[in-house]
C-alpha cells in the first residue's frame, strides 16, 4: 500500500467529521477499515450472506460512515467467522476482525444476544468450558468417556474446581464480568424503556 494511503488511514479522527465507531476502530489498531473501496468482494464470498440477509460490505460501510444502527443490527451476528472475506479483500483488510470489532462494540453497548449471554455467563464463566460434561444432564457423556477407558471427567478445569475459581478471578480482573453485567443492565434498561413507550 502506498505511503499516502497509509497516512490517510492512520490519520486522526476529527469529531466533527467522523464517528464514535470510527474512533473505536482506530483505538483498536483497526483503522485499516478506511481502505475499503466498497467493492463487495466480501459479500460475494460470504456463505452466510448467501443464505441470510447479512451483507458484509454493508456492515463495513456502515461502520466506516459512522452509521450506528449497525451495532444493533442482529445480522452482524450471522457471520460464521469463516474468513473468506478476509482472504479475498483486494485492499487486504482483515474483514472478519472488523466484524468481530463491531460485535465487541455492540456488546459494550448492551447489544448481546440472549443465547450468547447464556453461553458466556452460565456456561463458560461458571465452568471454564464452552461445552461442559459436568451436571446431572451430562452423565451420559461421562459414562461414554468411561466406556473408552478415559476418566469420566477430562483433566481440564473439570477435574480441578479451584482452577474454575482461578479463571473466574482472571475474568473479573480483565473486566469480563463487568462487561457481561453491564451488557445485561443496558439491555434490561432498553427493554423497560421500550415497554414504557408501548404503554404510553
Amino acid at each position, binding site marked *: 500500500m502506498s505511503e499516502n494511503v497509509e497516512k490517510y488511514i492512520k490519520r486522526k479522527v476529527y469529531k466533527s467529521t467522523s464517528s464514535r465507531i470510527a474512533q473505536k476502530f482506530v483505538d483498536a489498531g483497526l483503522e485499516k477499515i478506511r481502505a475499503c473501496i466498497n467493492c463487495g468482494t466480501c459479500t460475494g464470498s460470504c*456463505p452466510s450472506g448467501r443464505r441470510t440477509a447479512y451483507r458484509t460490505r454493508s456492515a463495513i460501510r456502515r461502520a466506516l460512515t459512522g452509521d450506528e444502527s449497525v451495532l444493533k443490527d442482529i445480522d452482524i451476528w450471522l457471520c*460464521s467467522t469463516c474468513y*473468506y472475506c478476509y*482472504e479475498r479483500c483486494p485492499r487486504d483488510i482483515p474483514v472478519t476482525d472488523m466484524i468481530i470489532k463491531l460485535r465487541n462494540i455492540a456488546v459494550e453497548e448492551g447489544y448481546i*444476544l440472549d443465547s450468547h449471554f447464556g453461553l458466556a455467563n452460565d456456561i463458560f464463566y461458571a465452568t471454564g468450558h*464452552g461445552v461442559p460434561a459436568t451436571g446431572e444432564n451430562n452423565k451420559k457423556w461421562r459414562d461414554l468417556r468411561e466406556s*473408552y477407558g478415559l476418566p469420566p471427567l477430562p483433566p481440564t478445569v473439570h477435574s480441578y474446581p479451584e*482452577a474454575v475459581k482461578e479463571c473466574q478471578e482472571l475474568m473479573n480482573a*480483565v473486566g469480563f464480568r463487568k*462487561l457481561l453485567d453491564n451488557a445485561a443492565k443496558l439491555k434490561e434498561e432498553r427493554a423497560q424503556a421500550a415497554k414504557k413507550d408501548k404503554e404510553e
Partner: protein
Amino acid sequence: MVKENTFAFFLGCLMPNRYPAIEKSTKFVMQKLGYEILDMERATCCPAPGVFRSFNKGDWMVAAARNLCIAEKLDSDILTVCNGCFGTLQEVNKHLKENKEHRELVNEKLKLIGNYEFRGTIDVRHVAEVLGYEVGPWGIEDVIIRKVNARAVIHYGCHFLKPTRIREIESSEGPTIIEEFVEALGIESVRFKEQLTCCGAGGGVKAYDGTASMRIFGEKMKNIDEVKPDFILDICPFCHLQYETGQDYLNKNKSCNYDYPVIHLSQLTAYCMGMDQEFIGLQYQLMGREYIFGGEEKEEEVI
C-alpha cells in the same frame, strides 16, 4: 528448549465432553507413532474464536494465553484436533510472540492469578498438519496395518487454513494436504461443489440462529449428497457436531433421508493403525451407526 516428539494435548470442550472417541483415537495414533502425549491440567475452553472473541477480543486473548502458559510450563508444543482451538491458540500465540505491547498487557493480567507468564516458547499444531506434513503419507504407509477402501468427501473447515497469512499452512483455495495423507490410508477423496465453504456452525451462528445455520448447512449436504460418498471426513469436532446434528435436523424437518457417517481424521487413522472399530465409536454417533469400515488387512505387518 521445547521437548522433541512430545505434545501437550489440548483437549478443548467438544472432543472430551461429546466425542471422546476422537480423544481416544488421537492418543492412540500419536503414541503409536512414537510421540509422548502430556495432559494439560487445568486447561479451559480455548476460548472459542467465534462466540467468545465476539464479546471482547482482549479478554479472549488473556484466557487463551493462560492455556498457552500451561503448555509452556510443560516445555511442549500444543497439539489440537479442533479448528476452533487451533484458530484461537495458534493466532494468540503468534500474535503475542510478535506484539510486545499486548504481551505485556496480557502478562500483567496473568500475574494477578499467580504463576502464569506468557513467554512465547512453544508452537501450536493441528493434528491434520502434523499427520499431513510431519508424519506424511510416506511415513504413515509403514505403520498402518490395514487400509480402508472407501470414497470420502473431505471437509477442511475454516480455521485450519484461514487466515492463510496467520496459519501459513497452505493455500485455502485448493488445499490437498488431507487428500494426499488419506490416500495412503486407501481413501479416494471425492470433490464436491463448494467443498471449501463453511459448515455454518461457527461464529456463534449455531447458538444464536439455528435456522440460519441449517440453511447454510443444508446447501452443503445437498452438494455432498450429489457425489454419494461412503462417509464425511473432517478435522474438527465442531464441524463433526454440525454434520451429525445437522443431518439429523434435515431428516426430521426437511424430509431428507441422510445417514452419512461422520469421521474425524484421528478416528480414521487410528482404525488403520489397528484400533478396533468398536472404539471408533460410530455406534454412539447420530449418523451411520451401522457403518463398518471395509478394506483389507495389509499382508505383512510392518511396525
